């Protein structure tokens, strides 16, 4: 029998605010243990939490960017569980009145992954287990999070990967989070079950907690799918439980401890007042959202004539897209800019993190200048390429790197002269060409290009050379 995979995601995204959700301590990553703390975020009795305005704004941005409805009235609740990473023995979260409801993310295959809700909450502290005891650092305690809960609409590992990638990209574009999975600013819990293909009934699910890499998510889901199918095939039952994924052995195993207790005894936090979201404010925030990556990609393809695959690469990193848009201002051939970025420029930025930061020496304005020189026929592609290399190395503008004569082009007389010289200097290639080897002409064109320092028009040179040879 064939089995279908069914998965839903709970994604925690750390918001890029300056301060924590309920106090004014910094949210900076790292720092000596317990140096970003105050009585509020270490849960001392008698302290009062005050909600950070920007947390509400960012959560609304996230909701609007994922097609959610924004609640008019929302509130904070206490989620009780006893564990040392939570100094108050409860987490302030949202239970039945989250800020955002009923959104979706559309995948490239046209399927929509529905988003049930997005709520705001505080992060827990960090525990380090050593020598029979546990060390607690509350720097991360109280850092604002949004939790994005999807419906169980994901049907394959590929869809899961695309969903997480899209979510990550959207959050980065709207500036609410850097979503660095390796630093924990984006983490996923994956709910997964299997069912016979064609069945409408959901199988028993398991939950893989705290996944912090897309490739691990894919591997863990594959493992868990196979494990559940094997259990069912051998007549056993899948037990609903919380699992931990071990990336060394590539297996999942049951988790014990706090996750066993499921009764969180939610109740309204009496220290925090109601959140009202005026409709005008929602519209203001909606209007302030930037163009989202997929709309951008579509525009690049339809209006700028960029191939689909290249457009996807350009929008994958927000800074790259911004760079591209500045580089093509007023140019005739946006595709040239795209080719330069994806080819030559990407070769100088090695990994994902560097592409994300996209700090390169050649400014978008100087690339813009270079492309305009090509557009106006002042320089040829070969010369442009070598100039771009120099720009990337030195940060100089093309006009600083190119001399007057470089930009003067090559007039017909000079081209003619060079072509005659090339024919005379390459008798073997000429003979080969005469004997029917079409390609031999390329070597002669190469001679022209080299001796004109890339200024010659290769197509015109080839025509000229063929004419000279046939006239011999």
């Amino acid at each position: 029998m064939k089995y279908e995979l069914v998965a839903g995601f709970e994604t925690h995204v750390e918001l890029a605010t300056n301060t924590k959700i309920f106090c004014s301590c910094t949210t900076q990553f790292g720092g000596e243990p317990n140096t970003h703390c105050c009585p509020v975020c270490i849960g001392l009795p008698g302290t009062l939490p005050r909600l950070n305005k920007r947390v509400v704004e960012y959560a609304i941005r996230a909701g609007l960017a994922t097609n959610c409805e924004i609640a008019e009235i929302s509130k904070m609740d206490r989620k009780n569980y006893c564990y040392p990473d939570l100094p108050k023995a409860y987490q302030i979260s949202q239970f039945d009145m989250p800020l955002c409801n009923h959104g979706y993310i559309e995948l490239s295959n046209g399927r929509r992954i529905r988003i049930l809700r997005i709520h705001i909450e505080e992060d827990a502290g960090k525990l380090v287990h050593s020598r029979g005891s546990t060390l607690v650092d509350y720097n991360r305690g109280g850092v604002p999070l949004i939790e994005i809960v999807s419906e169980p609409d994901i049907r394959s590992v590929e869809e899961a990967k695309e969903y997480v990638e899209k979510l990550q990209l959207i959050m980065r574009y709207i500036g609410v989070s850097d979503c660095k999975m390796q630093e924990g600013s984006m983490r996923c819990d994956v709910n997964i079950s299997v069912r016979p293909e064609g069945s409408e009934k959901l199988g028993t699910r398991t939950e893989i907690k705290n996944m912090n890499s897309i490739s691990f998510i894919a591997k863990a889901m594959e493992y868990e799918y196979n494990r559940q199918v094997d259990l069912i095939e051998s007549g056993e039952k899948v037990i609903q439980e919380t699992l931990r994924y071990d990336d060394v052995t590539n297996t999942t195993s049951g988790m014990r401890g706090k996750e066993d207790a499921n009764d969180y005894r939610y109740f309204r936090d009496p220290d925090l007042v109601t959140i009202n979201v005026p409709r005008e404010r929602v519209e203001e925030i909606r209007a302030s959202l930037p163009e989202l990556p997929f709309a951008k990609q579509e525009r690049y393809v339809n209006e700028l004539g960029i191939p689909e695959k290249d457009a996807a690469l350009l929008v994958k990193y927000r800074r790259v897209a911004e760079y591209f848009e500045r580089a093509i201002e007023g140019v005739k051939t946006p595709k040239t800019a795209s080719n330069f970025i994806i080819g030559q420029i990407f070769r100088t930025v090695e990994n994902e993190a560097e592409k994300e930061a996209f700090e390169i020496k050649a400014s978008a304005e100087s690339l813009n200048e270079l492309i305009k020189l090509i557009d106006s026929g002042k320089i040829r592609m070969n010369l442009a390429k070598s100039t771009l290399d120099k720009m990337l190395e030195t940060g100089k503008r093309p006009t600083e790197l190119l001399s007057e004569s470089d930009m003067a082009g090559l007039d017909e007389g000079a081209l003619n002269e060079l072509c005659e010289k090339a024919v005379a200097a390459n008798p073997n290639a000429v003979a080969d060409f005469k004997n029917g080897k079409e390609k031999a002409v390329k070597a002669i064109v190469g001679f022209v290009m080299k001796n004109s320092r890339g200024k010659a028009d290769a197509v015109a040179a080839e025509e000229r050379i063929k004419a000279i040879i046939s006239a011999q």
Partner: protein
Amino acid sequence: MKIAILSKLFVADDEIEQLTEDMSRIISFADTINSASEEGTDFDNINSLSNVLREDEVVPSYDRERILANAKDSDEGCFLVKNIMK
């Protein structure tokens, strides 16, 4: 006594009797809530305030010594608790 131990409070022997009596009175006072009528009372948001929000501006955190001052035990700048992983 149990509450004192759980709360990590030191109670002198001659204080026990008085405190026990006080505690019983506090608990019986809390019981009077049960006799109150629930009708027409909105227990949620009784102060009818909304949107008490704070600007996102950093205020220096506390010195670590002060943060850890009330900790029962500490090590390497961290709160030290009994191992919770079995």
